[in-house]
């Protein structure tokens, strides 16, 4: 662990006048990692990770997430899916979220957390439906309370804060979990949310997927902050950094933050450091603005390989298991693709039917027109 110490008041001293000042506040931001990029322990494992029945499924879920992600990207390339944002290289964060949350907690993420969604009961088929241009994909059949993918940046952070407000007002022992990207921390909504959560001591965990790039804007052009975790300090809530490619570190930080929230001690902010190995979305070409060497060096630190190395070293994993897992993932993904392709499209009527609790007359008239002109009737 290393730490970063800084004092706010000292920064106020100007070049021109030095006058006596008292230190009124002081903060530290801590960083944690358990598994380095070579798959070696850098400190003793936390309790949960000493149990193979917990650790191995985390690995399997990351592999499944990557298999899904690479298939979805392929589907887009072959015209079977719309624009798709990949989670390539960032699997540890979303898989840790899904595994740390209780079923009764509520998740409101943005759009790279497939590993979390799968564990929360969202079907692969539903995620494909959403990116395949159909609202049915946000009507999760088996995950009733989680929010759908959220495209307007950082708005979901407020939704989760509202969810946590409801939980707190009703004195429920539940938590909300939300995540946004590094770019989203520049949005007002991000700060408005963590600020309120601090004041109201809400049961919520804020994660930042710091993948270093907000489309084409690198972190150093996004903020002058040394860390994003310290933005929590401005809202009076604890912030820490973890190696976002070390699923053990992400999960350990989440466990701690969720416990704290459930104990009624309020919100936490976790900055998970990772790297966006792929393009922003399939509509983006990162080669226009990003050095390939940087990407190649980041690839050496990706999350799946390091856990695999560790599991092999612990005799918890081998080539046969790996082969079986890949086959199993492939089958699951193919099954989901089939279900996606076979799912009937939303009807034209559905454009109108969910706008209001009851269809107003004006919209009923417009629905008639749409139906009369619809291809459904041709």
């Amino acid at each position: 662990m290393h730490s970063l110490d800084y004092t706010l008041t000292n920064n106020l001293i100007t070049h021109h006048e030095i006058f006596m000042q008292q230190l009124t506040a002081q903060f530290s931001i801590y960083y944690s990692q358990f598994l380095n990029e070579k798959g070696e322990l850098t400190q003793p494992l936390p309790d949960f990770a000493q149990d193979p029945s917990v650790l191995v499924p985390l690995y399997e879920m990351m592999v499944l997430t990557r298999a899904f992600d690479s298939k979805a990207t392929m589907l887009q390339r072959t015209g079977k899916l719309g624009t798709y944002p990949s989670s390539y290289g960032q699997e540890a964060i979303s898989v840790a979220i899904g595994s740390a949350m209780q079923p009764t907690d509520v998740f409101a993420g943005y759009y790279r957390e497939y590993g979390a969604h799968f564990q929360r009961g969202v079907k692969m088929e539903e995620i494909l439906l959403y990116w395949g241009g159909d609202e049915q994909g946000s009507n999760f059949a088996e995950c009733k309370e989680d929010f759908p993918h959220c495209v307007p940046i950082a708005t979901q952070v407020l939704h989760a804060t509202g969810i946590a407000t409801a939980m707190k007002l009703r004195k429920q022992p539940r938590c909300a979990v939300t995540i946004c990207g590094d770019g989203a921390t520049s949005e007002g909504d991000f700060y408005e949310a963590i600020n309120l959560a601090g004041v109201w001591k809400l049961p919520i965990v804020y994660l930042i997927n710091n993948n270093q790039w907000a489309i084409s804007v690198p972190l150093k052009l996004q903020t002058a902050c040394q860390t994003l975790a310290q933005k929590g300090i401005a809202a009076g809530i604890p912030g820490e950094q973890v190696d976002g490619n070390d699923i053990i570190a992400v999960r350990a930080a989440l466990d701690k933050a969720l416990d704290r929230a459930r104990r009624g001690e309020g919100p936490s902010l976790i900055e998970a450091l990772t790297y966006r190995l792929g393009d922003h979305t399939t509509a983006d070409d990162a080669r226009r603005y990003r050095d390939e060497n940087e990407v190649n060096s980041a690839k050496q630190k990706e999350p799946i390989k390091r856990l695999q190395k560790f599991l092999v070293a612990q005799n918890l994993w081998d080539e046969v298991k790996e082969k079986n897992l890949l086959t199993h993932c492939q089958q699951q993904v193919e099954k989901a693709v089939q279900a996606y392709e076979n799912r009937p499209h939303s009807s034209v009527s559905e454009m109108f039917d969910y706008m209001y609790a009851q269809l107003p007359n004006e919209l009923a008239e417009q629905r008639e027109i749409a139906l009369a002109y619809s291809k459904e009737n041709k």
Partner: protein
Amino acid sequence: MTTSDGITLVEAITQALAYELSANPNLVVFGEDIGANGGVFRATAGLQQRFGADRVLDTPLAESMLAGIAVGMAAQGLKPVLEIQFMGFVYPAFDEIVNHISRLRNRTRGRLSCPMVIRIPCGGGIHAPEHHSESTEAIFAHTPGLRVVIAASPVRAYGLLLGAMRSNDPVIFLEPIRLYRKTKQIVPDNGIALPIDKCFLLREGSHVTLISWGASTHETLTAAEKLSQQGIEAEVIDVASIKPLDMDTILQSVEKTGRCVIIHEAPRTCGVGAEIAAQLAEKALTSLQAPILRVTGYDTVMPLYRLEYEYIPSEQRIVDAVQQVMAFG
């Protein structure tokens, strides 16, 4: 709270909020300065003391936050009723209102929804500072998925707000600030809601239909009395629910009178008056005996208060417009 002299519009709002806070345990009132202070217009006066700080919540100063947390609260089954202090301060909340509040039901195919009330004082006329006197109802009315309701009397404010708080849709509830303390009415605290998809007929007449809403209904009614002295009997409609529009009531009246003037304080271009005029042209052209005229605020920035009554449609402008349509053909 009902007294023999009646209560003001703002007191009717408080009365409705109190009624529903008692009736609906899921209802939560929140906003800036609404707790201990009772709101900048006193619309929530005494509510926190009466219902507690976990039903009536003072929040930090951030409008996007107000609207954004309401999304999560509503999805969890609470009924958020939030106050924006003035219409000019609602813009930071637009992203949440337009991108989420209005869309959540549709985008999740009904799995999640956002029934809530966003109360916004609107319009000019009380010598308020800059950004405190806007009338931008058309922006909300243009947004699919929202309901837009505007109060014009203490009785209707009470009933419409109850209707809004019991709706399963997100409702933008507008309260004209110059009516807050203008008149008093007896408002029985009976918990009876008014429909939020119907117009109100304020005055019957056979010669011309005057369509208005919010504060402008008052100049419209006094204009109608003036016109009556000249032998012109105007039918006056308070639209009240701007979205969705009760075109049936409006059509019925215009088909009877054959003449129509639309009066609103908001700027003219793309105002709700344009929508009503367009629908009348589509559906009642053969009944019309004169062009539809609009008497509206100008397409200018709402002026600071020295000129605000030059901007707000006056009784005289309404009378003149009616005489113009009566003289046609």
